[in-house]
């Protein structure tokens, strides 16, 4: 075969390969869009509640989807895509906001310890007077209270109470045991209640300091 013909053949081959690749790429894009876009509502709401504003939430979503598309080959079809996308977004969030976050998958014994201490410390919450906390509470106040929670507690409260995810899903999203989901959620809700209590006090529904409402020692048993 003459060199000229060889080159011609090679070019033809290349053109064919290229076309195939383009088609495959297009297929890949379609597949990604089909699978990933439906989860945007869930991710956007989480991003919105974590960042507290629309612009940051949008940025986070865009970054998440671009990253996810780049690493689409690493996604195993049939596994939980929502958890996969969530983890990408969580990493983006951490990188962006540089919040100290604990290693995923590690049971944090300090936290378990804190949990029991919180139960002791926040015994004020067992007062019937706290009924007033929920009177005339406004949306912004709940949102502000939420924003005051440390990230790991805010995360579980958003996922469980706003986005309605099950403990199993949350455990999967965060790579933590279900027991940790339970305790974080309990503690997160308590912290939020304490903030709402402060609002109620400021608005005059409740007078006095939280400890004035101590009734029982939770460890009496």
């Amino acid at each position, binding site marked *: 075969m003459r060199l000229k013909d060889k080159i011609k053949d090679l070019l033809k081959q290349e053109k064919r390969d290229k076309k195939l690749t383009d088609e495959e790429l297009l297929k890949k894009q379609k597949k990604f869009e089909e699978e990933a876009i439906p989860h945007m509502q869930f991710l956007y709401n989480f991003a919105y509640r974590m960042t507290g504003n629309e612009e940051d939430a949008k940025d986070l979503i865009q970054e998440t989807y671009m990253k996810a598309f780049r690493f689409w080959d690493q996604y195993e079809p049939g596994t939980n895509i929502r958890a996969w996308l969530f983890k990408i977004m969580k990493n983006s969030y951490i990188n962006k906001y540089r919040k100290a976050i604990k290693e995923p998958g590690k049971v944090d014994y300090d936290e378990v310890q804190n949990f029991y201490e919180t139960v002791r410390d926040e015994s004020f919450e067992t007062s019937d007077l706290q009924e007033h906390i929920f009177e005339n509470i406004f949306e912004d106040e709940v949102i502000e209270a939420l924003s005051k929670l440390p990230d790991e507690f805010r995360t579980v409260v958003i996922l469980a109470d706003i986005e309605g995810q099950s403990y199993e899903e949350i455990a999967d999203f965060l790579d933590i045991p279900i*027991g940790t989901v339970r305790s974080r959620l309990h503690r997160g809700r308590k912290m939020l209640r304490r903030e709402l209590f402060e609002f109620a006090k400021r608005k005059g529904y409740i007078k006095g300091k939280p400890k004035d409402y101590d009734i029982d020692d939770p460890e009496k048993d």
Partner: protein
Amino acid sequence: MDCRQTREFLSALVDNEEIDSQTKQKVEEHIWRCATCRTELELEKKTKETIKAKVKIIPVPNELITSVLNQLKILQNGYAQSLESPRELNPTPKPWLEIAFSLGIAIVTLSLAFLFVSVYGKKMTQRELIRKEVSALVNHFDSIAQGFAKPEVLSTDPAYVKNAILSKASFTPVFLNIPEFEIVGASIKDPHLRSGNPRCVNLIYRKGERLILIHQAPMSSAPMHDEIKKRILKGEWIYDTITDDSFVIWGTNELVCCAISNLPKEELEQVLKQTK
């Protein structure tokens, strides 16, 4: 089970999440006996309800979905390398209308021109003939220059434009190197659009506000008066102007070319001379 142990399961009770039956029984027993934990459970329920009721799910803004899809496309094209460039022709966005609009006008003008030519052709001077034949192209050029029509291919990367054209055109066009001008776009739609006519190639060169559109078509199929064809085949470059635009027709045995520009005729002549 004491209060401390019970508290760890309150959230699960609130959320109706599964707890193993033995533990659940113990927790429930404790709550039944302990008023504090009972209140605590009620308060946690209320907290959850309050959050759920007050903090609503927000719909995703439409523009976010659009921008994500657009970015994916850009990323996709980045992978495909030569598929499409994300960069646009004009840094200042112009109101591009559908190319069909301008093409439609071009076709109407052209068919009128041809009707004219067929009836009065013999009486017209060659100059008028040429001007009639070029007028559709000039219209096409004007709509591109004024931003009413968008060429199919738009890119600031000349190599990309060349590849796109080579893969689509039915013949091999010539890519002139015009000093200081850059290829910014191209189309293969034919403003002549005569039946059975193979597609032509329009290359758009740009230098600031100055544009040159180079139209090329196979000589065999170019709609052209025989006398003009003869002049071109002799190697003549026929320059002229229509309103504010200048143009030139020339050709080879294979190709007929027509350049249209918003440069003055003399400047167009000068610029093109440098390419020879």
